């Protein structure tokens, strides 16, 4: 009797389309960059919830970012980018709350 050989299945590979469009809302995601020089850059910041010299609270998509430190200063503020400078000592994240405005 002839021995049947088992055919090993080829591993499935995910095809990556380099020319495809990114996911929906890709460019509107909030991104936080921390630079070593003491500057923090936030892309697509939804709102500034609190702004004092020692504490800045920013609303990103689903999270609130609380930045604490000394001599905090918003260097630039526009729709796309927020640049924060100062001596930052602590960063904390928390779930975003609905705040009535």
């Amino acid at each position, binding site marked *: 009797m002839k021995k049947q050989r088992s055919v090993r299945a080829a591993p499935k590979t995910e095809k990556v389309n380099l020319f495809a469009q990114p996911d929906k809302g890709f460019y509107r995601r909030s991104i936080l960059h921390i630079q070593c020089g003491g500057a923090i850059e936030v892309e697509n910041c939804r*709102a500034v919830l609190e*702004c004092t*010299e020692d504490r*800045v609270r920013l609303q990103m998509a689903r999270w609130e970012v609380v930045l604490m430190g000394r001599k905090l200063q*918003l*260097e630039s*503020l*526009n729709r796309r980018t927020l640049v924060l400078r100062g001596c930052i000592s602590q960063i904390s994240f928390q779930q975003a709350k609905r705040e009535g405005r």
Partner: protein
Amino acid sequence: MAGLFAAVQFTARGGRVECLLDWCVAQGVPVQRICPNAEGFTAWLPARYYRRLHCPARRYGVQIRVNRKRGLWFFLARWRARWGLLAGPLAFLLVLHLAGGIIWSVQYNVPGPMLKKRLEAQLFSQNLQPGAAPTQADLQAAEQALLKQCPELGWITLNFADGRLTVECDRSRDTPIQPAGAKRIAAGESGRLLALNVQSGIAVKRAGQTVTAGETLIEGEKLDRDGRAVPGEAAGSAMALVQKQFRCDQSLTVAAEFPTGRLRRSEAVEGLGQRLDLPWYTKQEPDSRWQKKTTREPLSLFGFALPAVSVRTLWVEYARQEIRLTQEQAAALAAWACRRQLRQEHPDAELRTEEKERRLNNDVLQYVWTVQFEADIAVPEA
């Protein structure tokens, strides 16, 4: 560059200042350098957006106030009621720009201060002085006129750029150009040859020989094997030691035109092609016994040249007079005449020795100048 644009620094106090910031982000108002403080924040903003902040600030209960202003607009706004003060510098810049076509200074690159003074006077007579506005045609015409009036100049250029007129010239070379086609070079004077420089032809004499005037020094023609003359060209120079005597009879009584001491003068102003005679100086032009001398000077105001020249004309009356010379004066005049004669005959002469002899004979001083000199005695003959 950023400092040129109008920007204001404002303070936001009380109320919900964060909401005001969010409104700025939503409306695309570029707020910069936000410095939080105990009551709110201070920030910089382009001045054109500041009025738009009033409405949201009232809505969120925020009090905003301008602290500082920056930019060219605010700088100019300080002069809003004093436009005359601002118009002064602007008018000055405009005049500076328009005055680029006017001669502000004249730079001379000429050999010798005497030539510079002479050229300066000639340029004044051509109406090229500080303050004038010459065209290219004027400069070319002036160049031609200067070459005619100063025959010793080989070339001259007038370059005018950015208010500066540059005059450059050089003297023409004194080297005489020997006519081409000379058949022989003869000796112009009798003397002893010191050096014979043959450029073309055959030397007949040698250095150290004594030659007489008219004797051939360099022969152009040469004979071939058959004894026939082959025409050629003779060229060269012959330095020789020459001894020559010059005589001059100088009378002790000299009749000549001398100034009598009477003067007349007139003044005028020339500029922009016009001439204005000053009436309090202008007088009727005298007759031919008066010799005329004209001087031109540029007019200036507080050191700045005006586009005009002051023309002063001086008439000096001359009259024929007889004067009696002393023997020394007559000898000096006679010596000067002898030297002038030598320079006319041999411009390159270098004196070796000289002897002077004078004798008074019936009110006439006879002056004899015996001189030994080195000179080029070569004379080309066709």
